[in-house]
Protein backbone atom coordinates (compact mmCIF):
# COMPACT_ATOMS: atom_id res chain seq x y z
CA UNK A 1 0.00 0.00 0.00
CA UNK A 2 1.43 3.32 -0.94
CA UNK A 3 1.62 6.04 1.69
CA UNK A 4 2.85 8.80 -0.59
CA UNK A 5 2.26 9.30 -4.25
CA UNK A 6 3.79 11.99 -6.41
CA UNK A 7 1.50 12.36 -9.40
CA UNK A 8 3.07 14.19 -12.36
CA UNK A 9 4.51 16.88 -10.07
CA UNK A 10 6.25 19.97 -11.46
CA UNK A 11 7.88 22.89 -9.72
CA UNK A 12 8.92 26.15 -11.37
CA UNK A 13 10.88 28.82 -9.54
CA UNK A 14 10.91 32.40 -10.72
CA UNK A 15 14.18 34.27 -10.20
CA UNK A 16 14.38 37.92 -9.13
CA UNK A 17 15.06 38.81 -12.78
CA UNK A 18 11.78 37.13 -13.70
CA UNK A 19 13.38 34.12 -15.37
CA UNK A 20 11.58 30.81 -14.83
CA UNK A 21 13.52 27.75 -13.76
CA UNK A 22 11.77 24.37 -13.95
CA UNK A 23 13.42 22.36 -11.20
CA UNK A 24 11.32 19.23 -11.59
CA UNK A 25 8.78 18.23 -14.24
CA UNK A 26 6.54 15.15 -14.64
CA UNK A 27 7.91 13.77 -11.40
CA UNK A 28 6.04 10.62 -10.39
CA UNK A 29 6.86 8.15 -7.63
CA UNK A 30 5.21 6.01 -4.98
CA UNK A 31 6.48 5.39 -1.46
CA UNK A 32 5.13 2.31 0.30
CA UNK A 33 4.11 2.15 3.96
CA UNK A 34 7.09 1.19 6.11
CA UNK A 35 9.66 1.36 3.34
CA UNK A 36 13.02 3.11 3.25
CA UNK A 37 12.97 5.03 -0.01
CA UNK A 38 16.17 6.73 -1.15
CA UNK A 39 15.99 9.50 -3.70
CA UNK A 40 19.36 9.69 -5.41
CA UNK A 41 20.51 12.24 -7.92
CA UNK A 42 23.34 14.54 -9.01
CA UNK A 43 23.59 17.89 -7.29
CA UNK A 44 21.12 20.50 -8.48
CA UNK A 45 18.63 17.89 -9.76
CA UNK A 46 15.79 18.98 -7.50
CA UNK A 47 15.91 16.25 -4.84
CA UNK A 48 15.51 18.78 -2.05
CA UNK A 49 12.69 20.48 -3.96
CA UNK A 50 10.81 17.17 -3.96
CA UNK A 51 11.33 16.82 -0.20
CA UNK A 52 10.25 20.41 0.48
CA UNK A 53 7.04 19.87 -1.47
CA UNK A 54 6.20 16.67 0.41
CA UNK A 55 7.03 18.40 3.70
CA UNK A 56 4.57 21.14 2.74
CA UNK A 57 7.12 23.97 2.83
CA UNK A 58 6.57 24.66 -0.88
CA UNK A 59 3.60 23.97 -3.14
CA UNK A 60 4.00 22.22 -6.50
CA UNK A 61 3.22 24.34 -9.58
CA UNK A 62 1.60 21.39 -11.31
CA UNK A 63 0.44 17.88 -10.46
CA UNK A 64 -0.30 16.78 -6.93
CA UNK A 65 1.19 14.99 -3.95
CA UNK A 66 -0.97 12.63 -1.92
CA UNK A 67 -0.16 11.52 1.62
CA UNK A 68 -2.41 8.72 2.86
CA UNK A 69 -4.77 9.51 0.00
CA UNK A 70 -5.11 13.21 0.88
CA UNK A 71 -3.42 16.06 -0.95
CA UNK A 72 -0.55 17.75 0.90
CA UNK A 73 -1.50 21.37 1.60
CA UNK A 74 1.05 22.42 4.23
CA UNK A 75 3.49 21.24 6.86
CA UNK A 76 2.13 18.79 9.40
CA UNK A 77 3.33 16.62 12.22
CA UNK A 78 2.65 13.41 10.25
CA UNK A 79 5.75 14.26 8.14
CA UNK A 80 8.81 15.03 10.30
CA UNK A 81 11.89 16.52 8.67
CA UNK A 82 15.58 15.97 9.45
CA UNK A 83 17.48 18.85 7.89
CA UNK A 84 20.93 18.82 6.33
CA UNK A 85 22.65 21.34 8.60
CA UNK A 86 22.24 21.98 12.30
CA UNK A 87 20.48 25.37 12.01
CA UNK A 88 17.10 23.82 12.75
CA UNK A 89 18.08 22.97 16.33
CA UNK A 90 17.08 25.37 19.09
CA UNK A 91 20.33 26.66 20.57
CA UNK A 92 18.67 27.96 23.75
CA UNK A 93 17.30 24.51 24.62
CA UNK A 94 19.30 21.57 25.96
CA UNK A 95 19.51 18.32 24.00
CA UNK A 96 16.58 16.80 25.87
CA UNK A 97 14.51 19.99 25.60
CA UNK A 98 15.07 19.94 21.83
CA UNK A 99 13.92 16.31 21.69
CA UNK A 100 10.76 16.93 23.73
CA UNK A 101 9.90 20.11 21.75
CA UNK A 102 7.07 18.45 19.80
CA UNK A 103 5.62 16.85 22.94
CA UNK A 104 5.68 20.20 24.74
CA UNK A 105 3.72 21.77 21.87
CA UNK A 106 1.00 19.18 22.49
CA UNK A 107 1.06 19.79 26.26
CA UNK A 108 2.25 16.31 27.19
CA UNK A 109 2.95 16.27 30.96
CA UNK A 110 6.52 16.99 32.02
CA UNK A 111 7.30 13.59 33.56
CA UNK A 112 5.96 11.70 30.56
CA UNK A 113 7.70 13.84 27.96
CA UNK A 114 11.02 13.62 29.84
CA UNK A 115 10.72 9.85 29.89
CA UNK A 116 9.84 9.60 26.20
CA UNK A 117 12.54 12.05 25.14
CA UNK A 118 15.09 10.16 27.21
CA UNK A 119 14.07 6.91 25.53
CA UNK A 120 14.79 8.34 22.07
CA UNK A 121 17.98 10.08 23.18
CA UNK A 122 19.28 6.70 24.36
CA UNK A 123 18.10 5.10 21.12
CA UNK A 124 20.31 7.48 19.11
CA UNK A 125 23.21 6.97 21.52
CA UNK A 126 23.05 10.29 23.35
CA UNK A 127 22.37 9.00 26.87
CA UNK A 128 24.29 11.16 29.34
CA UNK A 129 24.42 14.19 26.99
CA UNK A 130 20.86 15.34 27.66
CA UNK A 131 21.73 18.49 29.62
CA UNK A 132 24.17 19.85 27.03
CA UNK A 133 23.32 22.64 24.62
CA UNK A 134 23.69 21.99 20.86
CA UNK A 135 26.71 24.32 20.68
CA UNK A 136 28.53 22.00 23.10
CA UNK A 137 28.01 18.93 20.88
CA UNK A 138 29.77 17.68 17.75
CA UNK A 139 28.19 17.67 14.29
CA UNK A 140 27.30 13.98 14.52
CA UNK A 141 25.71 14.45 17.94
CA UNK A 142 23.64 17.36 16.65
CA UNK A 143 22.28 15.21 13.85
CA UNK A 144 21.42 12.58 16.47
CA UNK A 145 19.41 15.20 18.37
CA UNK A 146 17.52 15.98 15.17
CA UNK A 147 16.76 12.30 14.63
CA UNK A 148 15.66 11.81 18.27
CA UNK A 149 13.52 14.95 18.01
CA UNK A 150 11.55 13.64 15.04
CA UNK A 151 11.27 10.10 16.42
CA UNK A 152 9.93 11.38 19.76
CA UNK A 153 7.14 13.12 17.87
CA UNK A 154 6.05 9.74 16.41
CA UNK A 155 5.35 10.87 12.85
CA UNK A 156 3.89 8.65 10.12
CA UNK A 157 6.93 9.34 8.03
CA UNK A 158 10.47 10.73 8.18
CA UNK A 159 11.81 13.05 5.51
CA UNK A 160 15.60 13.21 5.64
CA UNK A 161 17.44 15.76 3.51
CA UNK A 162 21.07 14.57 3.17
CA UNK A 163 21.28 14.42 6.97
CA UNK A 164 24.83 13.06 7.06
CA UNK A 165 26.32 15.06 4.18
CA UNK A 166 28.20 17.46 6.45
CA UNK A 167 29.74 14.74 8.63
CA UNK A 168 33.19 13.19 8.32
CA UNK A 169 33.41 9.79 6.62
CA UNK A 170 33.78 7.72 9.83
CA UNK A 171 30.92 9.43 11.63
CA UNK A 172 28.79 9.18 8.50
CA UNK A 173 29.11 5.41 8.14
CA UNK A 174 28.48 4.99 11.88
CA UNK A 175 25.35 7.13 11.63
CA UNK A 176 24.19 5.14 8.58
CA UNK A 177 24.52 1.92 10.54
CA UNK A 178 22.62 3.33 13.48
CA UNK A 179 19.87 4.73 11.27
CA UNK A 180 19.53 1.30 9.61
CA UNK A 181 19.14 -0.27 13.07
CA UNK A 182 16.60 2.34 14.16
CA UNK A 183 14.62 1.77 11.00
CA UNK A 184 14.71 -2.02 11.55
CA UNK A 185 13.31 -1.43 15.04
CA UNK A 186 10.67 1.19 14.24
CA UNK A 187 9.77 0.47 10.60
CA UNK A 188 8.78 4.07 10.04
CA UNK A 189 8.39 5.09 6.41
CA UNK A 190 11.44 7.10 5.31
CA UNK A 191 12.18 9.33 2.35
CA UNK A 192 15.95 9.77 2.34
CA UNK A 193 17.59 12.28 0.00
CA UNK A 194 21.22 11.67 -0.97
CA UNK A 195 23.72 12.12 -3.76
CA UNK A 196 25.91 9.30 -2.42
CA UNK A 197 25.39 5.92 -4.19
CA UNK A 198 27.09 4.06 -1.36
CA UNK A 199 24.72 5.61 1.18
CA UNK A 200 21.68 4.81 -0.96
CA UNK A 201 22.66 1.15 -1.39
CA UNK A 202 23.53 0.87 2.32
CA UNK A 203 20.19 2.21 3.52
CA UNK A 204 17.56 2.01 0.81
CA UNK A 205 14.94 -0.65 0.25
CA UNK A 206 14.21 1.06 -3.03
CA UNK A 207 16.30 3.70 -4.74
CA UNK A 208 14.73 6.27 -7.04
CA UNK A 209 17.40 7.61 -9.39
CA UNK A 210 16.76 11.11 -10.70
CA UNK A 211 17.82 12.73 -13.94
CA UNK A 212 20.04 15.79 -14.02
CA UNK A 213 18.19 19.09 -13.65
CA UNK A 214 16.51 21.18 -14.90
CA UNK A 215 13.12 19.52 -15.61
CA UNK A 216 14.25 16.52 -13.62
CA UNK A 217 12.17 13.41 -13.04
CA UNK A 218 12.68 9.84 -11.84
CA UNK A 219 14.82 7.95 -14.35
CA UNK A 220 14.26 4.56 -12.79
CA UNK A 221 13.76 2.71 -9.51
CA UNK A 222 16.12 0.03 -8.21
CA UNK A 223 14.79 -2.47 -5.71
CA UNK A 224 17.52 -3.52 -3.28
CA UNK A 225 16.84 -7.12 -2.25
CA UNK A 226 19.31 -7.15 0.65
CA UNK A 227 18.37 -7.77 4.27
CA UNK A 228 19.84 -6.89 7.63
CA UNK A 229 23.46 -5.82 7.81
CA UNK A 230 24.79 -4.80 4.41
CA UNK A 231 28.51 -5.06 3.82
CA UNK A 232 30.15 -2.87 1.24
CA UNK A 233 32.42 -5.74 0.22
CA UNK A 234 29.65 -8.25 -0.50
CA UNK A 235 29.16 -9.22 -4.14
CA UNK A 236 25.46 -8.40 -4.02
CA UNK A 237 26.18 -4.93 -2.59
CA UNK A 238 28.68 -4.25 -5.36
CA UNK A 239 26.24 -5.46 -8.02
CA UNK A 240 23.63 -2.94 -6.83
CA UNK A 241 26.26 -0.24 -6.57
CA UNK A 242 27.28 -0.89 -10.17
CA UNK A 243 23.68 -0.95 -11.38
CA UNK A 244 22.89 2.41 -9.76
CA UNK A 245 26.23 3.85 -10.79
CA UNK A 246 25.54 3.09 -14.43
CA UNK A 247 22.13 4.75 -14.21
CA UNK A 248 23.47 7.91 -12.66
CA UNK A 249 26.82 8.26 -14.46
CA UNK A 250 25.40 9.99 -17.54
CA UNK A 251 23.27 12.26 -15.37
CA UNK A 252 26.24 13.43 -13.33
CA UNK A 253 28.13 14.14 -16.57
CA UNK A 254 25.15 16.14 -17.87
CA UNK A 255 24.83 18.12 -14.67
CA UNK A 256 28.53 18.99 -14.69
CA UNK A 257 28.40 19.97 -18.37
CA UNK A 258 25.40 22.25 -17.72
CA UNK A 259 27.09 23.88 -14.76
CA UNK A 260 30.05 24.94 -16.92
Amino acid sequence: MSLVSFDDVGKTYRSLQGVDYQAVEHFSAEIEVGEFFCLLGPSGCGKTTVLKMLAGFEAPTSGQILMGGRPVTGAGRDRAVVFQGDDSLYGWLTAIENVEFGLRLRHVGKAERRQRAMHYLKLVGLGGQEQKYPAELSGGMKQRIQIARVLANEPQMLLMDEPFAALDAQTRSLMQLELANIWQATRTTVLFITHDIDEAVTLGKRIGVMEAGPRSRVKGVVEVALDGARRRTDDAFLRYYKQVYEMIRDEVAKSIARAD
Partner: protein
Amino acid sequence: MPTPDTATHRSALIGVPGRAARRLWSAYGGYALGFVSLFLIWQWASLYLVSSVLFPPPTIVFRKALVLVRNGVLLEHLSASLQRILAGFIAGSLLGVPIGLAMGSFRPVRKLLEPYTEFLRFIPSVAMITVAVIWFGIGEASKIFLIIYTTIFIVILNTAAGVSAIAPNKIRAAQSLGATRTQIFFHVALPATVPYILTGMRLAMANSFTTIVAAELIAANDGLGKMLWDGRLFMLVDEIFVSLVTLGLLGFVTDRMFRWSIYTFAGKYSPAT
Protein backbone atom coordinates in the same frame (compact mmCIF):
# COMPACT_ATOMS: atom_id res chain seq x y z
CA MET B 1 61.69 17.90 34.50
CA PRO B 2 59.25 17.68 37.41
CA THR B 3 57.50 14.36 37.83
CA PRO B 4 53.74 14.43 38.47
CA ASP B 5 54.54 13.75 42.13
CA THR B 6 56.68 16.83 42.66
CA ALA B 7 54.15 18.90 40.75
CA THR B 8 51.36 17.93 43.15
CA HIS B 9 53.69 18.48 46.05
CA ARG B 10 54.53 21.97 44.92
CA SER B 11 50.91 22.99 44.33
CA ALA B 12 50.13 21.62 47.79
CA LEU B 13 52.84 23.87 49.21
CA ILE B 14 51.52 26.94 47.39
CA GLY B 15 48.03 25.89 48.38
CA VAL B 16 44.60 26.92 47.10
CA PRO B 17 44.98 30.66 47.87
CA GLY B 18 47.86 30.82 45.39
CA ARG B 19 45.75 29.31 42.65
CA ALA B 20 42.81 31.58 43.47
CA ALA B 21 45.08 34.61 43.29
CA ARG B 22 46.38 33.48 39.93
CA ARG B 23 42.85 33.04 38.61
CA LEU B 24 41.88 36.48 39.92
CA TRP B 25 44.95 37.93 38.26
CA SER B 26 44.24 36.36 34.88
CA ALA B 27 40.63 37.57 35.05
CA TYR B 28 41.13 41.14 36.27
CA GLY B 29 44.90 41.74 36.19
CA GLY B 30 44.88 43.35 32.75
CA TYR B 31 41.98 45.59 33.72
CA ALA B 32 43.63 46.73 36.92
CA LEU B 33 46.89 47.48 35.10
CA GLY B 34 45.02 49.37 32.39
CA PHE B 35 43.23 51.59 34.86
CA VAL B 36 46.35 52.22 36.93
CA SER B 37 48.33 53.20 33.82
CA LEU B 38 45.48 55.46 32.68
CA PHE B 39 45.64 57.43 35.94
CA LEU B 40 49.45 57.44 35.99
CA ILE B 41 49.63 58.91 32.47
CA TRP B 42 46.96 61.45 33.39
CA GLN B 43 48.92 62.45 36.50
CA TRP B 44 52.15 62.77 34.56
CA ALA B 45 50.55 64.70 31.68
CA SER B 46 48.84 67.09 34.05
CA LEU B 47 51.92 67.81 36.16
CA TYR B 48 54.70 67.88 33.58
CA LEU B 49 53.17 68.16 30.11
CA VAL B 50 50.40 70.73 30.59
CA SER B 51 50.95 71.99 34.16
CA SER B 52 47.92 74.25 34.14
CA VAL B 53 45.04 74.71 36.60
CA LEU B 54 42.76 74.02 33.65
CA PHE B 55 43.87 70.36 33.62
CA PRO B 56 43.96 69.10 37.22
CA PRO B 57 45.76 65.82 38.04
CA PRO B 58 43.75 62.83 39.29
CA THR B 59 44.99 63.31 42.88
CA ILE B 60 43.28 66.72 43.07
CA VAL B 61 40.19 65.44 41.27
CA PHE B 62 39.84 62.51 43.68
CA ARG B 63 40.29 64.79 46.69
CA LYS B 64 37.55 67.03 45.32
CA ALA B 65 35.36 63.98 44.64
CA LEU B 66 35.79 62.86 48.23
CA VAL B 67 34.60 66.28 49.44
CA LEU B 68 31.59 66.16 47.12
CA VAL B 69 30.76 62.63 48.25
CA ARG B 70 30.95 63.65 51.93
CA ASN B 71 28.62 66.64 51.54
CA GLY B 72 26.22 64.57 49.42
CA VAL B 73 26.34 66.80 46.33
CA LEU B 74 27.84 64.19 44.01
CA LEU B 75 25.38 61.49 45.05
CA GLU B 76 22.46 63.85 44.50
CA HIS B 77 23.51 64.67 40.93
CA LEU B 78 24.44 61.08 40.18
CA SER B 79 21.16 59.63 41.38
CA ALA B 80 19.19 62.28 39.49
CA SER B 81 20.89 61.33 36.21
CA LEU B 82 20.75 57.61 36.87
CA GLN B 83 17.04 57.66 37.71
CA ARG B 84 16.24 59.46 34.46
CA ILE B 85 18.32 57.03 32.43
CA LEU B 86 16.77 53.96 34.05
CA ALA B 87 13.17 55.19 33.76
CA GLY B 88 13.55 56.16 30.10
CA PHE B 89 15.64 53.10 29.23
CA ILE B 90 13.15 50.64 30.75
CA ALA B 91 10.12 52.39 29.22
CA GLY B 92 11.84 52.66 25.82
CA SER B 93 12.80 48.99 25.84
CA LEU B 94 9.33 47.88 26.92
CA LEU B 95 7.84 49.82 24.02
CA GLY B 96 10.55 48.99 21.50
CA VAL B 97 10.62 45.19 21.87
CA PRO B 98 6.97 44.49 20.93
CA ILE B 99 7.08 47.04 18.10
CA GLY B 100 10.30 45.48 16.76
CA LEU B 101 8.82 41.98 17.03
CA ALA B 102 5.70 43.05 15.15
CA MET B 103 7.76 44.79 12.45
CA GLY B 104 10.04 41.78 12.04
CA SER B 105 7.17 39.29 11.94
CA PHE B 106 4.59 40.98 9.72
CA ARG B 107 5.43 42.71 6.44
CA PRO B 108 2.40 45.05 6.48
CA VAL B 109 3.35 46.28 9.96
CA ARG B 110 6.91 46.87 8.81
CA LYS B 111 5.76 48.80 5.73
CA LEU B 112 3.44 50.87 7.89
CA LEU B 113 5.93 51.70 10.65
CA GLU B 114 9.16 51.99 8.67
CA PRO B 115 8.42 55.59 7.63
CA TYR B 116 8.24 56.47 11.35
CA THR B 117 11.37 54.62 12.44
CA GLU B 118 13.44 55.47 9.35
CA PHE B 119 12.48 59.15 9.58
CA LEU B 120 12.68 59.70 13.32
CA ARG B 121 15.87 57.78 13.99
CA PHE B 122 17.82 60.26 11.89
CA ILE B 123 16.70 63.17 14.07
CA PRO B 124 19.27 62.98 16.87
CA SER B 125 17.83 62.98 20.37
CA VAL B 126 20.10 65.94 21.15
CA ALA B 127 18.16 67.92 18.54
CA MET B 128 14.92 66.87 20.21
CA ILE B 129 15.95 68.57 23.47
CA THR B 130 14.50 71.82 22.14
CA VAL B 131 10.98 70.51 21.59
CA ALA B 132 11.17 68.28 24.66
CA VAL B 133 11.75 71.30 26.87
CA ILE B 134 9.01 73.30 25.13
CA TRP B 135 6.54 70.43 25.51
CA PHE B 136 7.43 68.98 28.91
CA GLY B 137 9.34 71.77 30.70
CA ILE B 138 12.74 71.39 32.33
CA GLY B 139 11.57 68.75 34.85
CA GLU B 140 11.78 64.96 34.79
CA ALA B 141 9.21 64.45 32.01
CA SER B 142 11.35 66.01 29.28
CA LYS B 143 14.44 63.97 30.30
CA ILE B 144 12.55 60.69 30.40
CA PHE B 145 10.95 61.51 27.05
CA LEU B 146 14.41 62.08 25.56
CA ILE B 147 15.83 58.82 26.93
CA ILE B 148 12.81 56.91 25.61
CA TYR B 149 13.40 58.59 22.26
CA THR B 150 17.08 57.58 22.38
CA THR B 151 16.33 53.98 23.38
CA ILE B 152 13.30 53.02 21.37
CA PHE B 153 14.65 53.14 17.79
CA ILE B 154 17.82 51.20 18.52
CA VAL B 155 15.78 48.51 20.31
CA ILE B 156 13.17 48.39 17.52
CA LEU B 157 15.77 48.06 14.76
CA ASN B 158 17.77 45.37 16.53
CA THR B 159 14.68 43.38 17.48
CA ALA B 160 13.28 43.51 13.94
CA ALA B 161 16.68 42.53 12.51
CA GLY B 162 16.79 39.63 14.99
CA VAL B 163 13.42 38.33 13.84
CA SER B 164 14.42 38.40 10.17
CA ALA B 165 17.73 36.68 10.98
CA ILE B 166 16.02 33.53 12.30
CA ALA B 167 17.10 30.51 10.24
CA PRO B 168 14.07 29.41 8.14
CA ASN B 169 14.78 25.80 9.12
CA LYS B 170 14.05 26.63 12.77
CA ILE B 171 10.54 27.71 11.76
CA ARG B 172 10.10 24.79 9.35
CA ALA B 173 11.19 22.27 11.97
CA ALA B 174 8.59 23.65 14.38
CA GLN B 175 5.89 23.48 11.68
CA SER B 176 6.71 19.84 10.99
CA LEU B 177 6.58 19.10 14.71
CA GLY B 178 3.02 20.44 14.73
CA ALA B 179 3.47 24.00 16.02
CA THR B 180 0.74 26.59 15.47
CA ARG B 181 1.60 30.15 14.43
CA THR B 182 1.26 31.35 18.02
CA GLN B 183 3.49 28.54 19.28
CA ILE B 184 6.10 29.38 16.64
CA PHE B 185 6.10 32.97 17.85
CA PHE B 186 6.53 32.16 21.55
CA HIS B 187 8.67 29.02 21.31
CA VAL B 188 10.90 29.89 18.34
CA ALA B 189 10.81 33.51 17.14
CA LEU B 190 10.93 35.17 20.56
CA PRO B 191 13.75 33.14 22.16
CA ALA B 192 15.77 33.24 18.91
CA THR B 193 15.55 37.05 18.97
CA VAL B 194 16.63 37.52 22.59
CA PRO B 195 20.36 38.05 21.83
CA TYR B 196 19.50 40.81 19.33
CA ILE B 197 17.13 42.48 21.80
CA LEU B 198 19.82 42.47 24.49
CA THR B 199 22.42 43.89 22.08
CA GLY B 200 20.01 46.66 21.12
CA MET B 201 19.38 47.48 24.78
CA ARG B 202 23.10 47.59 25.51
CA LEU B 203 23.72 50.05 22.66
CA ALA B 204 20.73 52.11 23.78
CA MET B 205 22.12 52.26 27.31
CA ALA B 206 25.39 53.72 26.04
CA ASN B 207 23.56 56.33 23.94
CA SER B 208 21.36 57.27 26.90
CA PHE B 209 24.45 58.64 28.67
CA THR B 210 25.12 61.04 25.79
CA THR B 211 21.52 62.20 25.71
CA ILE B 212 21.10 62.72 29.44
CA VAL B 213 24.25 64.85 29.76
CA ALA B 214 23.27 66.98 26.76
CA ALA B 215 19.76 67.46 28.13
CA GLU B 216 21.00 68.36 31.60
CA LEU B 217 23.57 70.77 30.18
CA ILE B 218 20.81 72.74 28.54
CA ALA B 219 17.93 72.54 30.98
CA ALA B 220 17.94 70.89 34.38
CA ASN B 221 18.03 71.63 38.10
CA ASP B 222 20.28 68.69 38.95
CA GLY B 223 22.17 65.81 37.38
CA LEU B 224 25.75 65.27 36.22
CA GLY B 225 25.19 67.46 33.15
CA LYS B 226 24.01 70.32 35.36
CA MET B 227 27.11 69.82 37.49
CA LEU B 228 29.28 70.18 34.36
CA TRP B 229 27.47 73.35 33.33
CA ASP B 230 27.77 74.94 36.78
CA GLY B 231 31.45 74.06 36.80
CA ARG B 232 31.89 75.97 33.56
CA LEU B 233 29.85 78.95 34.75
CA PHE B 234 31.79 79.34 38.00
CA MET B 235 35.14 78.14 36.63
CA LEU B 236 35.19 75.11 39.00
CA VAL B 237 37.52 73.01 36.86
CA ASP B 238 37.93 70.34 39.56
CA GLU B 239 34.16 69.81 39.71
CA ILE B 240 33.97 69.48 35.92
CA PHE B 241 36.55 66.72 36.11
CA VAL B 242 34.76 64.97 38.99
CA SER B 243 31.62 64.93 36.85
CA LEU B 244 33.50 63.62 33.81
CA VAL B 245 35.19 60.83 35.75
CA THR B 246 31.89 59.91 37.38
CA LEU B 247 30.25 59.64 33.94
CA GLY B 248 33.02 57.39 32.69
CA LEU B 249 32.90 55.12 35.72
CA LEU B 250 29.09 55.03 35.77
CA GLY B 251 28.96 54.05 32.10
CA PHE B 252 31.63 51.42 32.60
CA VAL B 253 29.92 49.92 35.65
CA THR B 254 26.40 49.84 34.12
CA ASP B 255 27.71 48.26 30.92
CA ARG B 256 29.61 45.60 32.91
CA MET B 257 26.51 44.91 35.00
CA PHE B 258 24.43 44.59 31.84
CA ARG B 259 26.95 42.19 30.33
CA TRP B 260 27.14 40.22 33.53
CA SER B 261 23.37 39.84 33.76
CA ILE B 262 23.17 38.77 30.10
CA TYR B 263 25.81 36.16 30.83
CA THR B 264 24.17 34.98 34.03
CA PHE B 265 20.49 35.03 33.15
CA ALA B 266 20.52 34.71 29.37
CA GLY B 267 23.80 32.90 28.64
CA LYS B 268 22.00 30.12 26.82
CA TYR B 269 20.58 32.61 24.30
CA SER B 270 23.95 32.87 22.61
CA PRO B 271 23.77 33.83 18.94
CA ALA B 272 25.55 30.59 17.93
CA THR B 273 23.18 28.02 16.37
